[in-house]
């Protein structure tokens, strides 16, 4: 099979948890700029879904930064990467509800 036949058969995934592709990241960016007239990291996260999945951005934050700084450069804006960091929330790891639900103390000490 030549490479031509299966090229781009699969999407290029940026955020694996939320299934956001590179294309969708750029689309969400353009939609937001059109809608808001400016860039806002929090709004962007909500619109694209990136950084909001199970892993809380462990895998996609670096790509998000690369893609956004590229897109912003096109409209003459310098991205401040420090503004891109999402607010982390507990639980940092997926755990069963019961871990939070049962509150009586016991065991050692």
């Amino acid at each position, binding site marked *: 099979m030549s490479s031509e036949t299966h090229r*781009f058969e*699969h999407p290029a995934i940026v955020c694996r948890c939320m299934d956001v592709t590179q294309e969708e990241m750029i689309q969400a960016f353009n939609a937001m700029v059109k809608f808001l007239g400016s860039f806002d990291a929090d709004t962007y996260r909500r619109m694209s879904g990136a950084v909001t999945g199970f892993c809380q951005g462990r895998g996609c934050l670096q790509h998000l930064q690369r893609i956004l700084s590229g897109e912003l450069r096109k409209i003459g804006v310098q991205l401040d990467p420090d503004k891109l960091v999402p607010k982390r929330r507990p639980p940092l790891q997926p755990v069963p509800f019961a871990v939070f639900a049962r509150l009586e103390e016991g065991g050692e000490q």
Partner: protein
Amino acid sequence: MLLQPVDAIFPVLPPSRAWIVGGSGIAASSPLSGLVDRRIYEHPVLKFDRGRRVRIIFEGREIPAYENETIAAALYAAGIVHFNYSGHLKRPRGPFCMIGKCSQCMMRVNGIPHVRTCITLVEDGMIVEREDVHDAELPTPTKKMKVEYVTKDYDIVVIGAGPAGLSAAMQAAKLGAKVAVLDQNPFLGGQLIKQTHKFFGTKDSYAGTRGVEIAKMLVDEIKDYENVDIYPSAQAIGYYRREGVLVAFQSRRLAEYRVLKLRGKRYVVATGAMERSLVFPGNDLPGVMGAGAAQTLMNVFGIRPADEVLIIGAGNVGVIIAYQAAQAGIKVKAVIDILPKTAAYLVHASKIRRMGIPVLMRHTIREAYGKGKVEGAVIYEVDEKFRPVPGSEKDLAVDGVWMAVGLTPSVELLELMGAKIKFVRELGGYVPLRTQYLETTLDGVYVAGDATGIEEASTAMMEGKIAGISAAFSLGYKADWAEKERAHAMKWLDEFRSSPHYARIKEGIQKVLIQK
């Protein structure tokens, strides 16, 4: 004091019984003959102590496993690489990082959804199913969940039991502090436990010793301290000012949790790093994973994750793993790198060239393809401006694509705690601001190892010493030897970073160094 069954702590030990049955594939005398078995029974460097044989049930099929294997390892050993379906596109997915960070290995286990199989050890009779991660069904635990809350006070709580965390805990313990050290992985030693190459450097940074042996030495030494509690399989899931670090401490049994509120007077965060990925079509296919993840399967569990692989990135990690893959009987089709010149040490790079592994510089990946898992990859050459060279495409039949394209610091816990974080390209990503003694902007919260910026295991151990000693000093523990040890570690780091190879790191650190 170790708070888990000792047998679960360290998988790579001298053989307790004759495991080696000859041949690199499935030996005729293997207890598993007749089934797909990707375990390595003969390895030039490692012996694998897999422990007692058990079985797990994967979608109705019985699969042999060993008690020192995680669920993900046991499935890979049976040739199963598709673990779940993705949220919106329902694409088959499998593990990417193998160290409990990427959340791509989640499965439904004993009726509990979203179990991260790469850090959960198998239990006999465990029922493992693929899940749909966004449309998971209601939990139907096959066993009653047991959750117990315990609050414990410590002088110092160390999060992460890799080279940095263990070194920090050890120094603080030597000074007399009461220390807790926890790690979400079932095995202690961080990423040292998969490093079979001998370290460079000087005597005090364990030069000439393999990472696996360093890990064992660190663990053996710290285990005997009465004032140290060690918690493997313990995930830091939150931090609350009053309660401290909230930890879900999973017992050997899946449905049993002890939720620990570990209140430390000081904290040392040594959460390490995570592998980076690349964006290309098919980059999420099962079998496309971090090179370090493949290394975990090969060197910790003794499993061949693939038969033929493409490795992306010809830096030190890429070429070392190419060499180790060959040792494990895997055919490395090519090691590619977009740069014109390899960044790897000459020793490592020439080793794989001698083995006849093609190292293609100025090459990158166009796509990975396959049905349900990776079956091939297309690579192409680029010119000096990184533009594709027409007609340079090559189609490689591979069942593994491993990315060795760098690491990024894991600072989620520090962010949650409220430490100030800054993006520093030279250090590999977002890193905390810190003093020369590695205290962050939060009083009493220290950081060490790759979480401060991507470096090496030897620098992580030195940073661990500095953070551990400084944390103990701030609590009033004092000793002349510790003053000397800390000064020595700081001098060592300074000299290490003075070599032209590490000038960038020195520059990066200047950007986050603060005074208090």
